[in-house]
């Protein structure tokens, strides 16, 4: 009951024509920013902070605007994943795996509608979780120490084998490339630089956004040039856009499972949306078993990661608000905004600033509905992107990639590095080595290593510490099963009749 009256307080703060207008503007801007490669939710929110101050917005209005942008970007990331095979931001990476094949088969509209609804389900699930359980869930972060985080990342890597390639060994090679790159930069545990060759630009390591834009967008440009525009991925078939009710019903289970997994990943400060969408995808793949056509345009492969990354985005607000720990780049920017408004997030926030917290929650709900209504009818507009000839679209994407990456640190070095990644991506694609594991290696490798070494410091080098809690034993079991089970299952299961399904075991 108290929750309801709090929620009413929130809506009374957040619901008026002006804030609704801000929500619409924010949702639209966010969707566009999310869809542009290289510009993710954290850039979007960071760009708009000065705007919010220039407009003289009060705390609640500023929060409405920026959370709309945040959620909007999480929706928008999927659009370029599906239509261009270039993820708009890092959590949307998993959506390329099945979203783009769907678009190739002329089901771009279906993929966009399914992923849009999945985003809504994930975000609403997370917002509901935030309302009901926030103070309690904050405690979950206290249960995860170095050993538990290490096991969690290990789980991600052991299940990585079958991602986006018919050949598991190639996925492993790709992951090793990524892990190797993650070694570059300042080593947290000794304070010493590694593999930087005295170059200051490498001190912070390789920014995964640079890697993503290089490996996806720039590689695409190279293929486009090589084939004189013929063999390029851009320019998929366009069929009529309808609401695929059947597929929506069929994927509702995937959406819910994806939401739960994503939400849990979001709550953990060290995990975040990318891990959430990845685990949601891999879990869905194993639930589907040999009935799935994952990697070839299975609608479940679109629904699960999208629900997962949006649920993680909502979940990440919990440690940000209740502990002051930002679980992602975007929540770090939102944290900065709150602090600039002289609101200090932490365990006492809910008691000290109920108007801000509940206003924020109400604005999340508003933004989510605005985005759903905006995204379903607007699918047609987004699909029209396909009608623009590739020779117009691709230079545009390239330009935006360069501007977006330059805006990260204002350094030419990142641009050179991005082109380098483009070249790497070109060769990897020629060799049929998937690029998604490379990025996961860069993204998660550091965290995995840091946590292993922290665990060793805490336990004075005693490796049994890694299995000393129920949570870590559970995660290790899941990791070992995830790695070993496919090998054994392959022996027992007959190869499916169609060669297309060969890797779905």
């Amino acid at each position, binding site marked *: 009951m108290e929750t309801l009256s709090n929620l009413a307080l929130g809506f009374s703060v957040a619901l008026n024509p002006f804030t609704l207008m801000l929500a619409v503007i924010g949702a639209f801007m966010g969707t*566009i920013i999310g869809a*542009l490669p290289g510009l993710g939710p954290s850039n979007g929110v960071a760009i708009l902070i000065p705007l919010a101050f220039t407009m003289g917005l009060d705390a609640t209005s500023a929060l409405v605007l920026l959370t709309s942008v945040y959620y909007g970007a999480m929706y928008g990331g999927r659009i370029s994943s599906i239509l261009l095979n270039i993820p708009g931001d890092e959590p949307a990476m998993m959506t390329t795996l099945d979203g783009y094949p769907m678009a190739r088969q002329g089901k771009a509209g279906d993929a966009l509608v399914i992923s849009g609804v999945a985003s809504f389900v994930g975000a609403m699930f997370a917002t509901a979780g935030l309302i009901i359980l926030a103070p309690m869930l904050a405690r979950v972060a*206290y249960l*995860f120490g170095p050993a538990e985080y290490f096991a969690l990342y290990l789980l991600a890597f052991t299940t990585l084998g079958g991602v986006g390639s018919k050949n598991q060994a190639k996925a492993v090679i790709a992951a090793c490339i990524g892990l190797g790159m993650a070694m570059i930069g300042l080593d947290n545990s000794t*304070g010493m630089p590694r593999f930087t060759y005295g170059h*200051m630009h490498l001190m912070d390591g390789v920014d995964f956004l640079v890697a993503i834009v290089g490996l996806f967008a720039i590689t695409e440009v190279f293929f486009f040039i090589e084939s004189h525009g013929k063999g390029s991925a851009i320019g998929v078939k366009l069929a009529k856009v309808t609401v695929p009710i059947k597929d929506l019903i069929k994927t509702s289970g995937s959406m819910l499972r994806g939401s739960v997994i994503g939400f849990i990943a979001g709550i953990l400060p060290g995990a975040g949306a990318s891990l959430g969408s990845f685990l949601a995808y891999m879990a869905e793949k194993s639930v589907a078993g040999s009935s799935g056509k994952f990697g070839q345009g299975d609608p479940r492969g679109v629904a699960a990661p999208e629900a997962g990354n949006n649920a993680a985005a909502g979940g990440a607000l919990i440690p940000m608000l209740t502990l002051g720990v930002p679980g992602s780049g975007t929540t770090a920017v939102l944290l900065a905004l709150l602090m600039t408004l002289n609101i200090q997030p932490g*365990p006492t926030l809910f008691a000290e600033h109920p108007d801000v917290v509940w206003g924020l929650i109400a604005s999340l709900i508003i933004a989510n509905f605005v985005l759903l209504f905006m995204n379903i009818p607007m699918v047609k507009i987004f699909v029209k992107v396909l009608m623009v000839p590739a020779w117009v679209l691709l230079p545009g994407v390239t330009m935006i990639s360069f501007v*977006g990456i330059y*805006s990260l640190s204002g350094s030419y070095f990142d641009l050179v590095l991005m082109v380098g990644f483009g070249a790497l991506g070109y060769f990897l694609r020629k060799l049929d080595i998937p690029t998604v594991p490379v990025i996961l290696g860069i993204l998660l490798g550091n965290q995995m290593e840091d946590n292993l070494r922290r665990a060793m410091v805490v336990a004075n080098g005693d490796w049994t510490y890694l299995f000393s809690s129920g949570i870590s034993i559970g995660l290790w079991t899941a990791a070992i099963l995830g790695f070993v089970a496919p090998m054994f299952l392959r022996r027992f299961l007959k190869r499916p009749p169609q060669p297309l399904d060969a890797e779905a075991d």
Partner: protein
Amino acid sequence: MKTTLLKALGVSALLGLTATTAMATECIAPADAGGGWDFTCRQIGKLLYDLKLVDSPVQVTNMSGAGGGLAFANVVNERNTDPDLIVAASSATTTRLAQNAYGGATADQVRWVGTIGGDPGVIVVAKDSPYMTLSDLVEAIKADPSKITFAGGSAAGGFDHLKPLQIMKAAGFNDAKAIKYIGLNGGAEAITQTIGGFTQAMTGDISEITGFIRSGDVRALAILSPERVAGFEDIPTAREQGFDVVVVNWRGLYVPKGISDDAFNAWATKLQAVADSAEWQAVMEANGLAPFTLVGADFQGWIDGVVAETTTLSREIGVIQ
């Protein structure tokens, strides 16, 4: 689609503007949005404009990289005569300069305008910890250093790591390498690990953990300021417990070396005006900062001393040769 692209261009133009505009005063925060330097730029920038000390709103640029090293190199090499440029700095800046972590750059390559607030260091433990005073903790480490791990928000050798080392040194324990420390991404993560019982103590700045102290989840054993801090009067200083250690993370600015003395003095005057304003007092109180104002030549001299001291300590613990 056309509108989509136009919007896109608009967004990128906006991005380009925030990244390069130099017409108005620009404040470089040498880290991503959300950290202490970003806070410094945004708060000082806002007050400079609100108090009408500058004509147009201060443009905040986030230039992250190499723990502030990229921004430092950029200012020294490319913006050395820009009179409209201020850069956020803190103890982390001087610590890294002292440890030669900015690729050979030195503190005398820029001019230090001043500090207008300090964030005192704290040592905290979880509420159910057996250690009630700083002495309890120090004695436990002396008895068996392998049993106590500190968590902090900086990498090994960083500012948070140096605090417990200085305390142990003051207590006569000189085996710095035996003191266990894990570096996390920021103070809030460090405190989560400590409340969760994975580490026995946390070393950080007080502004990072005010919420946790108020909620009673942690117990602060000592504050590393010269005097007790308003709002947290019941936290004893390390000094009054017999450990002569003062570590304050100052918040301030530096400017390019090549600007005129007049321009430098103008910045010093403006910074002093911000420090004296009632608005800044309110900001400090809300964020757990303690008054710590040093401007102009005084600050320059103080910086030189801090850099020398940090160099000595870092050499003793083996972070630098």
